[in-house]
């Protein structure tokens, strides 16, 4: 099967620090893919490279056939249009807007009505807005947020904010969705619930999922394939069982040989 996303030796330097070094892996359509590693390993930086927030120093990243970061460097909004959406480790919602509005904005990039029709409130703009709102409501339901649709995003509790970010990302109708520590700060029940939801996103909505998570139970139960980063380098790749028993991984996490 052709990969959906391939990292080909992606590298980025910040001054003297090589935050991500020659990282290479493929994600196939329909994967539930995990990206793990200790703090500061370069996981979030990988997300930033994939979504075009940072530009690679060398190597390249392909999405399907298209080069998105490398020889050609697409801006984040173009990459999102191609079908990659993300959440942020340090939540970045549109704080003053309601949950529903946040999700509507997620869907906006697929809207075709013109600015002119919005300014004059013509039928295309109204229809588009209504359709986006209906769709947004649906995503809020999936994330179990429909009761909070009209609450300001910054007034929501932390766990709900995380879920709202996922709903917003879903609304862009991506092929690949990147989740940066989605379970951070959640209690075991919430985390369990989230795990089911993420699986649904893949199974019912057919999205490919790439996720970063520190909660090992969460990752090992959910992900089918996992890449481990340490100090920007890829140190292991495989299924949950391979990773669990990989001495290099244990060393990276515990800081000493086993």
């Amino acid at each position, binding site marked *: 099967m052709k990969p959906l996303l391939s990292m080909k030796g992606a590298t980025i330097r910040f001054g003297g620090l090589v935050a991500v070094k020659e990282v290479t892996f493929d994600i196939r359509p329909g994967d539930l893919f995990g990206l793990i590693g200790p703090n500061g390993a370069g996981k979030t930086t990988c997300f930033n490279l994939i979504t075009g927030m940072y530009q690679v120093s060398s190597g390249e990243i392909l999405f399907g056939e298209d080069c998105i970061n490398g020889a050609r460097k697409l801006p984040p909004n173009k990459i999102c249009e191609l079908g990659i959406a993300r959440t942020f480790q340090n939540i970045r919602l*549109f704080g003053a807007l309601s949950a529903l509005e946040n999700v509507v904005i997620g869907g906006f990039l697929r809207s075709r009505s013109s*600015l002119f029709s919005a300014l004059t409130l013509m039928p295309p703009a109204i229809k588009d807005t209504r359709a986006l709102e209906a769709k947004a409501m649906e995503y809020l339901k999936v994330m179990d947020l429909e009761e909070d649709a009209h609450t300001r995003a910054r007034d929501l509790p932390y766990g709900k904010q995380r879920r709202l970010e996922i709903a917003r990302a879903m609304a862009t109708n991506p092929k690949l969705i990147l989740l940066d520590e989605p379970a951070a700060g959640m209690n075991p029940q919430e985390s369990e619930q989230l795990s089911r939801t993420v699986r649904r996103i893949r199974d019912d909505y057919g999205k490919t999922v790439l996720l970063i998570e520190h909660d090992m139970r969460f990752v090992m139960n959910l992900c089918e394939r996992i890449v481990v980063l340490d100090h920007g380098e890829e140190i292991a790749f495989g299924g949950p069982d391979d990773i669990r028993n990989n001495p290099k991984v244990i060393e990276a996490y515990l800081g000493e040989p086993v």
Partner: protein
Amino acid sequence: MRFWGVRLASIAGGIGLAVLIHWIALSQLSAFGVRLVVLAGLYVTLAVSLNLINGITGQFSIGHAAFYQVGAYAAGLFTVKVFSSQPLTFMLWVPVAMIVGAVVASAAGLLVGLPSLRLRGDYLAIVTLGFGEIIRILSQNLKVVGAASGMAIEPKMLSQSPMVWLCWLLAIGSIALCRNLLQTAHGLSFLAVREDEIASSAMGINVTRTKVAAFVLGSALAGAAGGFYAHYEGFLIPTQFGMEVSFIILTMVVLGGSGSITGSVIAAVALSALPELLRNIKTIPLATVIGLTIGVIAAVSLGRRWSEQLHGPVRDRVLKLSGLTGLCLGGGYLLGLGLRALPALSEATTDGNRIRMVIFAGTLVLLMLVRPQGVLGHREFGLGKWLREPAR
């Protein structure tokens, strides 16, 4: 079908309101009163258009008067050069000239916006300030627009019957455009850019294009207002559009609450009258100014302390705080009377013209210290709520 019915009704309502204002102004008010109504209309347009850039899209522009000026000069020059050789009557001509002003001003907006809007917020402030200076220097030196001695616009509106309806139609139109925009998903994308540029771009919003669109649209509206002003005054000199004007518009937007259209409108109507009214106050004892300033400072600093400790219903708190404010202001006034006993201050006076900018500047600073989100915050006020209803 129903859509078009409602639409036509609201357009008719807008035009009707403009005509009503025109009729009331011309039949009931003195020449000075009419002037205030016209200026209020222009400032509503300016404040609402700056609010689109500043409050809704979150781009901190502080040189809005420059676009007003570009529009005024462009429209004025166009009339001077072209009017005599074309068939339109003056009444039909003015809107055409305003469109010319809008187009040229929006081109200027594009010119300034493209390089600076790709960058972080603070730079835009300086670039727009600088653009204002460039425009001022150009207008003072270019012979075609009369350089420093100014340019007469011929023909101009008759002073006994200015087209008040036209300037209020523009104001109402600007309000309608912004309000319409906020009803749609498109408008939400502008708000998203204000809230978080990085998240917006990750959600597929073309951040630069959104900012430039807001900037160009805001400049166009300011340019149209300038076009009206040119034909209303009949004479343009560079000093009419200094940094002062930019800061007055900015104060209106900030005071009304960035992002709140109704806030901008109310603040614009209230503040546009202030400079004109102050201009007529000839002598104010300096001692009173000092006393009142001290009173205001006391009210603000005590109020800040106090409001953190106050609890209970909103009404009680508002009452207590306004009591405190009244007390401080009264005390300040008395202090002013006392200060007049000092020999250095007994004779010193100032005039309204000189303290108006002090009032604006003081308002800005105190407002930031007390309530940075503006009087209305992001919210819409009463009528505004009603305006927002239909789309949601």
